[in-house]
């Protein structure tokens, strides 16, 4: 009874500024395009490159091994290409956190690795057992410390260190493969063929989850990947840059924003205006990232000039985010309300 009354009341009285506009895009087609052209290729690349990483670790487990380090970077790039797609298969059994535990505000990763190595914990002997280890001791950031951290790369007996490198690499491949398998064997269909029995009931719901991935991906790049090392003007935090040990802080942002640009272009394919706005915004991001090439780990945030360049990159990413929330969201019919959007 109230439901109908409330609906009538809101149609009759709601101020035009708060009203939702009619949706004119083919939501189902956009979901299909995002899945086929962006999501599935991204997770396939993750599965393939992490297999190669595990194979490289089997061949050579020394932290200084060039083939191993190269395979690490290639696989990490693939993760950056999908790290914004945090729904469905990535969230089963903490797979995504098991691949990338960052930020690590309390230093859990070095503690977890230190404990494994000090105890020569036999949990690393078995793939399934290892998945019970804290997510802080697994994934790309654990492997990064095992390969690049001056202390942890040389910690403990060489044999155990080698076995741990191999196990962490194999575990990354295992989780990545499982994510890809789940996407291919069912989850993609749940998104592209929404139904009352599935996870998503309508095309709008499917589209909204992909839209949210774009928005939160941009947010994470700007606020965390750049915001964390920027800190504040008085207290810059260069040592908090993501993946600084392997020298890929900027590269992570570059690869991630390139992937987000790809998704943004797919989702804006039915609006020339929005698509053009995105092209401009992402071109600026790329240009500014190129300008930062000589500061791959954002060490420059300590100095005015270097800080300024990182802040500009952050502003450009925020501009792309503004296009997402102010233009794309309303056009797709997935915008949230005043309270729904606030989330607190």
């Amino acid at each position, binding site marked *: *009874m*109230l*439901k109908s*009354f*409330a*609906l009538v*009341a*809101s149609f009759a*009285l*709601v*101020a035009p*500024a*708060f009203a939702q506009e009619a949706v004119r895009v083919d939501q189902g087609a956009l979901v299909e395009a995002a899945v086929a052209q962006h999501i599935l290729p991204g997770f396939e690349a993750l599965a393939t490159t992490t297999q190669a990483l595990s194979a490289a670790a089997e061949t050579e487990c020394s932290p200084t091994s060039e083939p191993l380090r190269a395979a690490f970077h290639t696989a990490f790039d693939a993760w950056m290409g999908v790290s914004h797609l945090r*729904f*469905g298969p990535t*969230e*089963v059994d*903490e797979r995504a*956190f098991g691949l990338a*535990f960052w*930020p690590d*505000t*309390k230093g*859990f990763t070095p503690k977890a690795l230190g404990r494994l190595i000090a105890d020569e914990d036999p949990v690393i002997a078995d793939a399934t057992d290892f998945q019970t280890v804290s*997510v*802080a001791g697994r994934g790309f950031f654990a492997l990064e410390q095992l390969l690049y951290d001056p202390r942890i790369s040389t910690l403990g007996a060489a044999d155990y260190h080698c076995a741990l490198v191999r196990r962490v690499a194999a575990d990354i491949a295992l989780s990545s493969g499982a994510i890809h398998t789940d996407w291919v064997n069912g989850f993609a269909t749940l998104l592209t063929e929404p139904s009352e029995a599935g*996870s998503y009931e309508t095309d709008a719901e499917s589209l909204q*989850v992909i839209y949210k991935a774009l928005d939160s991906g941009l*947010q*994470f790049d*700007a*606020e*965390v990947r750049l*915001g*964390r090392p*920027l*800190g*504040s003007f008085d207290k810059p*935090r260069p040592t908090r840059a993501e993946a600084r040990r392997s020298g890929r802080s900027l590269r992570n942002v570059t690869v991630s924003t390139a992937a987000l640009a790809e998704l943004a272009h797919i989702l804006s394919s039915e609006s020339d205006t929005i698509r053009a706005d995105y092209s401009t915004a992402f071109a600026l991001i790329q240009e500014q990232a190129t300008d930062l090439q000589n500061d791959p780990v954002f060490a420059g945030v300590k100095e005015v000039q270097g800080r300024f360049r990182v802040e500009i990159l952050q502003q450009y990413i925020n501009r792309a985010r503004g296009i997402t929330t102010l233009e794309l969201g309303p056009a797709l019919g997935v915008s*949230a*309300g*005043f*309270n*729904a959007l*606030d*989330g*607190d």
Partner: protein
Amino acid sequence: MVSRRRVLAGLAASSLLPSAGWASVGAPAFLSAARAPDGQFVLTGLTETGDISFTIPLPARGHAAAAQPTRAEAVAFARRPGTFALALDCRDGTVLARLNAPEGRHFYGHGAFSPDGTQLFTTENDYEAGLGVIGVWDVAAGYKRLGEVSSGGIGPHEMRLMPDGQSLVVANGGIETHPDMGRAKLNIPTMAPNLTYLDFSGAIVETASLPVAFHKNSIRHLALHSDGTVALAMQWQGAEGAAPPLLGLHRRGGPITLLAAPERLHGALDGYAGSVAISGDGREVAITSPRGGVVHVFDLASGTFLRGVELEDVCGIGSRAAGFFFTTGTGAVGALGDSVRQQPVQFDNHLVPIGT
């Protein structure tokens, strides 16, 4: 002997208007932050019939507020991670004091007065340590900071005065954030929310937690009944579709019990409860979900789901003698299941009860 000058100073500080009680501002039943059509953020007083009894401009988007129990004075908190709060004379909007969060702290947007209105308690983030604190402020001294105590967890959000008048209950949401990184959540894999009871000295008198499987269910908002029942509203940070219950009930000394609507209806909440209230008669408890555009009402004694009421962008909810009062982000306000009116503002997250 008090000098004449001091008397005058005292008069000026407490404003020269007569009759300082809440009746002087149209006897509002609730406070709510809102956004006016011109974009101006405001604090409003709302009567039980949905009239706006006063409107005071705010310098930025508000979140919740705390109502001084003895006079028409409110502390409006900025939206997280705000570093200021304003003590306002609700008769004319005079800013009585500006509360600045100390260095290294920011407000979460909620606070509570002591029963006599002499002290204000605020939930805050010690963000370098990543720990929650409760700030303590001396109201009579112009909201001077007295000190702070641990909140008993990370990410304290809503805090309420318990009906015993001697303790506070804090919803430690469990989520670590840092203002350098906006509102990004930094510790989802390891988060551990809890409900903490503190006495006014800051001693923790009880902590209640959720089952381990629900450690990603962020406890954010609270409602109380006069018998000491605490209702807690949660926001799920885990895999979507996992959909654990988003409403809990707690009584001192017992476990947290969890309530949820039947599966298909529960899914409509989208893993997110925005506010919670217990009806004045203690018979019903309700949570709102702005994301799902729905209110879920339960029988408090049995925990049985009673009904869902769909309302676009609904979030604010407060208790009436029987039933509930609600507000929405589209400006609707009314008695749930009974009446609805339209006001030309967008009501922000919460309804703050006055006089309880």
